[in-house]
């Protein structure tokens, strides 16, 4: 199993046979709302079957965050839980890395970019590795 390709941590993370991983969104052709993952009806304008599949941008800005010092047992702390508005639409949540977990160092609206990497060594019950996404200062 160890030689096999890692699995995506969430359904909207796509790992093509060749080429780089990317995040997939669904965009409503009527109103432009962007969703993570597949859907057929727009919950903003209620249009049906008007979704187009898009590649989400890999850059964005930091909308909000919290610094987590207490999590569930076995989870390494501290870490930054970040909400990022992607350039061109879509909002996504994840860990902000490669910056001190210190409110004096973190600026709202700072530009960030998405990177991909192993899911902190976590494996499922079958021993599969996973690929995750992270944010880091751009």
């Amino acid at each position, binding site marked *: 199993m160890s030689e096999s390709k890692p699995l995506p941590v969430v359904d909207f993370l796509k790992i093509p046979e060749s080429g780089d991983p990317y995040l997939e969104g669904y965009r409503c052709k009527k109103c432009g709302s962007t969703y993570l993952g597949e859907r057929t009806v727009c*919950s903003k304008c209620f249009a049906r079957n008007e979704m187009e599949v898009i590649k989400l941008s890999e850059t964005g800005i930091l909308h909000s*965050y*919290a610094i987590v010092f*207490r*999590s*569930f047992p076995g989870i390494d702390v501290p870490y930054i839980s970040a*909400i990022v508005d992607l350039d061109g639409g879509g909002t996504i949540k994840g860990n902000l890395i490669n910056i001190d977990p210190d409110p004096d160092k973190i600026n709202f609206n700072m530009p960030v970019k998405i990177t991909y990497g192993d899911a902190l060594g976590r494996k499922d019950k079958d021993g599969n590795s996973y690929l995750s996404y992270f944010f880091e200062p751009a």
Partner: protein
Amino acid sequence: MSDVYVMGVDMIKFGRFPDRSVPNIGAEAALMALDDAGLGIQDMQALYCGNLGQANAMVGQRILQEIGQTGMPVVNVANACATGATAFREAWMSIKAGMYDVVLAVGVEQMGKGLLGGAGGGDGIPKEGLLGSGTMPCVFAEAGMEHTKEYGTTFEQFAKISVKNHHHSTMNPKAMYQIETPLDEVMNAEMISYPNTKLMCSVNVDGSAAAVLVSEKKAKELGMSRAVKVRASAMASDPYTDRDLVMPDVNACTRLAAKDAYEQAGIGPEDVNLVELHDCFATAEMLHYENLGLCKDGEAGRMIDEGHVELGGKVPVNVSGGLLSKGHPLGATGIANIYEVCTHLRGEAGKRQVEGAKIGMTHVIGLGTACGIHILEKVN
């Protein structure tokens, strides 16, 4: 449509009761509310029961097995932290609809300790700490930090809310804790998710609360002296907002329900004498000053800095001690805060009494999202 009155209402002192069952805890508050109304279970025409932890286990019927099985219809409801308010609202609606004249609403929860929430269940690997955090202290910290981004709200201002609510709880014998927590103690407590320290997180406790709701006809029959009129019962789910896929929006949902509630009551925020709102975390309370219209957008920090939301202030908020110190048994909270407001409107709140209170508001929000707001008015 008949007006609806609260004729009896009570809550148990919140605490930890690991040796009791959920129905047993709920039964205690039910009997207290019946006594407060001067009625018996045989007088009730229906029961609306709110509980989250055993939502699939017929808690309402099991309460009746402890206090009297009359065969009345029982509806069990679950709506996250708005569960109690939802049960109360279903009871209210049944009288509004003309179905019944006397009904009982009970909210109950047994909690256990520790963090609630958690990011991304489902298949594969745990997502907590990998794709951010879904723990409640973090989710509400992120919501608070939006306010910081917009208005420069500080860690200290958030912490002051916790100082205030803990202070209020020293005057509430039914609160889990009656302990003063000075500002430095709140700010230096263990950081859970910045900017929420441990003392800025609600307390997980067991508890129950119950209310007897009656029609106007029945209220007149029973006597109006301690009756409290329900001027509004509003509920909303989260309308679409751009970030709500990853960031539960407690603001839009509350604003929607508040607008409806004020319209139903035909009043404005300036007419409200006290508010029990959903301070599940100190960061959350800050947001709701604005969401409920108690101040203009951007002025919430000033509300706490200038003491407007303290007992004795312009509009005291969470004089019960709030979820931060009274405790937050999820299914009970939405009726416990109705108990608190009714107690002030009846002039029976002792040391924490909001003098001259005529109109009060209760607010809860359950992530996912459900917001329940009630406006209550003193009758006599």
